């Protein structure tokens, strides 16, 4: 949590017209504040873009017997990178690419009962379009570029999230010496 966010939210709390009168109210206020402090709103992606990014993130890494990209808040991480990390040019390219994904979906949609945006497509059509975009992910602009970056950020954001780092990968920091010949079989 960044200091400026804490200050902003605490400022909102102090502006409340009354202070909690009892312990329960104080706890509720505390919980509400905590929720707001940890649930940073999107700052770059507007609502349709959030829906699109959220949809594609979850398709890249879906919820299975382990958490999916959305439940570990990958879309929020992507929004953070767009807001604070990406250059203006990179952000513009990415957002233009998202628009292009919807345009591709619209073209798709004409054949699929006139639906217009990616999020409106039927699951099979979404998969078909993403499969095409995955082949174009090295593109320098447009839908392929947006998908390529979305995929990179999704994988990175997912595997570096706390729940996945700790409970799925069970990342080890300590080893008793290096072992260079350990049997390995991929889990089924």
């Amino acid at each position, binding site marked *: 949590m960044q200091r400026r966010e804490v200050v902003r939210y605490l400022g909102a709390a102090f502006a409340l017209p009354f202070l909690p009168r009892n312990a329960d109210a104080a706890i509720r206020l505390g919980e509400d504040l905590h929720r707001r402090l940890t649930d940073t709103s999107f700052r770059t992606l507007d609502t349709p873009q959030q829906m699109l990014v959220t949809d594609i993130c979850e398709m890249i890494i879906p919820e299975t017997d382990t958490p999916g990209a959305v439940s570990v808040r990958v879309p929020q991480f992507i929004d953070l990178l767009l807001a604070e*990390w990406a250059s203006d040019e990179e952000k513009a390219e990415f957002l233009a690419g998202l628009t292009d994904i919807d345009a591709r979906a619209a073209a798709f949609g004409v054949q699929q009962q006139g639906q217009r945006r990616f999020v409106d497509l039927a699951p099979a059509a979404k998969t078909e379009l993403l499969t095409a975009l995955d082949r174009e992910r090295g593109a320098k602009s447009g839908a392929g570029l947006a998908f390529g970056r979305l995929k990179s950020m999704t994988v990175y954001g997912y595997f570096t999230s706390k729940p996945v780092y700790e409970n799925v990968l069970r990342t080890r920091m300590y080893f008793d010496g290096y072992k260079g*010949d350990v049997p*390995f079989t991929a889990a089924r």
Partner: protein
Amino acid sequence: MPLTYDAIVVGSGISGGWAAKELCEKGLKTIVLEAGRPIDPNVDYVEHVPPHEMRYRGMGDRNRIERYQPVQRRCSACNEYSGKFFVNDLDNPYSTPDDKPFMWIRGRQVGGRSIMWGRHTYRWSDLDYEANVRQGIAVDWPIRYKDIAPWYSYVERFAGIQGAKEGLAHLPDGEFLPPWPLNVAEQRAREEVLKKFDGQRLITQARQAILTRNHNGRAACHLCGNCERGCITLSYFSSLNATLPAARKTGNLTVRPFSVVHSVIYDPKTHRAKGVRVVDGNTRTMFDVHAKIVFLNASALESARILLNSKTAEFPTGLGNSSGELGHNVMDHIMGGGASATLPWYKDRRGLGNRPGAVFVPRFRNVKTAHPDFVRGYGFEGGAERGDWSRGTWMSGFGADFKKALISDLGPWEMTFYGFGEMLPRHENRIEIDPHLVDAWGIPALRVSCAYGENEKKMLDDMVVTATEMFEAMGAENIRPIKDDNPPGLVIHEMGTARMGRDPKTSVLNAHNQMWDVPNVFITDGACMTSTANQNPSITYMALTARAVDYAVGLLRRREL
């Protein structure tokens, strides 16, 4: 009143830490003047902080780094965790000619760059110490391997160096701790390369200043793999982890952070240094420190800068510059040629543990036969590992199977050889004081004019060829040649600005790192180097420092200084 000590050490990095330890252990009251801040390992070491505790998950505060560290960011270790160990480029300016970029990577804090160094430690041999005189390049080293071999042993025993003895004359074995094993893929690569190249090319374990067992009060490495962020178990060698604590134990050590040394104070009557002039890093006020001996260990460029800023009537171009060589002969290594490839073996095997370094290929060019295109040689660093989840950022696919593969499976073995080669000394590669530039403390800053020559460029080309050949010979697949166009400086092995030599007319230092012109000033950082060899230089700085202190204190005790 000036502060007065027996000895001054300027800088607290690899060589400054050794100077402090040796001087203190020999009974001299010693002050270490460090330009940067103190480091508290309990706060500043962040090697075990997981990515989700970092705002950008380790990707760095890009806007801040681009604004304040446009040069430092070229070093991969200058990241979200370790960027704090690299200087603010705006406070520490230097200039270059437009056509000669130079990446000066610096760390100003107690511990200096020994906190983030690469930890590879290879002895040099007479193939290196005799190279200049054999080829008529620059000047002869005033020492040979036999002069420094016992000092290599001395510093290795204290620092703790892991390595495999290979019996190579041109890469002498040291006092090694047992090394980590090669992994199964590297072992096979070693065998294939040995067979195909008739024993002339060798893949061996990287020799590293990282402990494989408890040693001198420091714990064995636990292979978290994040050395550049610090090490709370003190398992890799740094001045902060090893030499400064040893110096402190004597009761003779004073470390003064925020002490930016401006110049050496020269006494023309005695022809000795009185001490140094210092700018307090916080208050910007100046003060003097006096001592019988001064060791300059501020790094190759900084130590020479201090001398270039120490002009006197007797030395109008910089203190101790009667030879005219001070600030000249700037060298780095050249890196960037090599290859990566996929090894189609052992899909049922993996390595376990995050090694910070893996393999080394010792120099094989110009060892027994002369190469037609270039003199000297290069080695490769590298290693083989199986791909982890991060391969998902570039591989095809999405969905449940894609996710499962990243979680439950590993990619194939991927191996890389990345070359590090020797750079020849050239008089025209130089630093000088830029008359129009000062740093944040008002101290005149440097203009660096340094470029690689044809010999280095041909060597870089050859790195690509030989790395590719080795992969082809071992039956690797998907071979990807690498040729990075790195500017000098980026290897972070700056050397040569106050070279050692046999003749005061052509060198700044004698065979004991003592200034010919100012006998109580010693320089034992990269400035002293007469050539670069291709091996990483730090263990040689350490050995030269311990040797020079022994000599200096002997002179002092015999009242010959």
